[in-house]
């Protein structure tokens, strides 16, 4: 509360009823008496220049009010969420699950802020709340949950921008915009840069959204299973430019993932080499791209070569 008691004393009381302890400010009162600035009863500034002190006091008061208003209570944050258009069902889902997991109010407030932020940024609220309840269910730390939700929100925003850039090259009639955006956001969340995805999609221009979706989730599989982003991108580009079907891409990816750690690099190198050989063979064989060998023959032939 800001008070001017008309006798030269300007005081700011930051103590606020119901303020969460984690967000309570250590400054309880700020008083300006004649030429002395006191914080919590202790002299903080003493000097002659009244204007400078007034400015300092004003700035500090502004800071105190900003932080205090930003902190708020859980009920304030719930109200803010609903005022911002976050469905009450999504709010109560987060609050109830977080309370059931024993998360303190401060942690729940931070979680709700990510949801509010997502809503303000036109990012799917259920997607963010789903990540939050996932973390809660897995007993992740509150800070980690908030971090994951924020990263997912950023990933989804970047995926939306990427989609706008590449939508012109997607074959029409395959209406899977949401799924494609989601697959892209999962990939970005797993550390793939939007430019890397854009570059990858250039290897298969004019494909259907389903094809891009499978390529994108397969790339994510490789990365989340220990392959580097560069290895994953190179492999997937090769698959795209070799006109492999979505099924083939998925099967090959699974084979790579199921390799023991020690033999993965060899397997990846063989896959890359095989792709080059296949491309060379195909240049000498008239016919269409769908005229491909079944996967098992492909592998047998590959093994014989090595």
């Amino acid at each position, binding site marked *: 509360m800001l008070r001017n008691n008309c006798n030269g004393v300007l005081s700011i009381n930051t103590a606020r009823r119901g303020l969460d302890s984690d967000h309570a400010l250590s400054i309880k009162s700020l008083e300006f008496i004649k030429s002395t600035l006191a914080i919590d009863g202790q002299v903080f500034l003493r000097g002659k220049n009244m204007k400078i002190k007034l400015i300092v006091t004003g700035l500090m008061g502004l800071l105190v009010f900003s932080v205090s208003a930003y902190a708020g209570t859980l009920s304030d944050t719930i109200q803010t969420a609903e005022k911002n258009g976050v469905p009450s069902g999504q709010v109560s889902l987060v609050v109830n699950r977080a309370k059931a997991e024993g998360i303190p109010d401060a942690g729940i407030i931070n979680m709700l802020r990510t949801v509010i932020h997502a809503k303000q940024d036109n990012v799917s609220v259920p997607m963010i709340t789903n990540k939050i309840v996932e973390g809660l269910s897995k007993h992740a730390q509150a800070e980690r949950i908030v971090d994951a939700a924020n990263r997912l929100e950023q990933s989804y925003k970047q995926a939306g921008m990427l989609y706008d850039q590449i939508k012109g090259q997607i074959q029409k009639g395959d209406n899977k915009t949401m799924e494609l955006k989601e697959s892209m956001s999962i990939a970005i969340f797993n550390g793939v840069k939007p430019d890397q995805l854009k570059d990858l999609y250039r290897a298969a221009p004019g494909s259907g959204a389903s094809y891009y*979706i499978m390529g994108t989730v397969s790339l994510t599989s490789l990365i989340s299973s220990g392959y580097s982003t560069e290895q994953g991108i190179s492999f997937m580009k090769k698959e795209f430019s070799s006109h492999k079907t979505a099924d083939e891409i998925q099967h090959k990816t699974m084979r790579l993932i199921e390799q023991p750690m020690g033999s993965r690099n060899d397997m990846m190198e063989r896959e890359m080499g095989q792709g080059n050989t296949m491309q060379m063979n195909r240049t000498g064989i008239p016919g269409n791209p769908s005229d491909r060998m079944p996967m098992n023959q492909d592998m047998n032939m590959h093994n014989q070569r090595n």
Partner: protein
Amino acid sequence: MIVDCAAEQIVPTVVVNNNNCMFSYRDHGAKSVSLAGSFNDWDRTSMSMKKTVNKDGQHVWSIGIRLPEGIYSYKFVIDNNVWVVPPHADAYASDGFGGKNGILIVSKGLKQVKE
């Protein structure tokens, strides 16, 4: 304590037929297995899987649910506290909490949905 581990399994993890998804998981030591994922708000208890013993004496836990087209993340939960990465998922992705989720794609444009 939550443990994140991959488990051995040969049977397919999910078979999708016209949006009906049959999840299966083989585990001999489990007292209970449930399915948790983005489709049930990661609830550890709401989708309990049913145990059957196949002709080879193996304990196969399964549950069938209907899902609209989309991309879903999921895991199995053993005895309500051990999170297991699905052995043969369509794809995988890091969950942001130090673990990995199975990814299920339900889409008519891909092989998972049999027309």
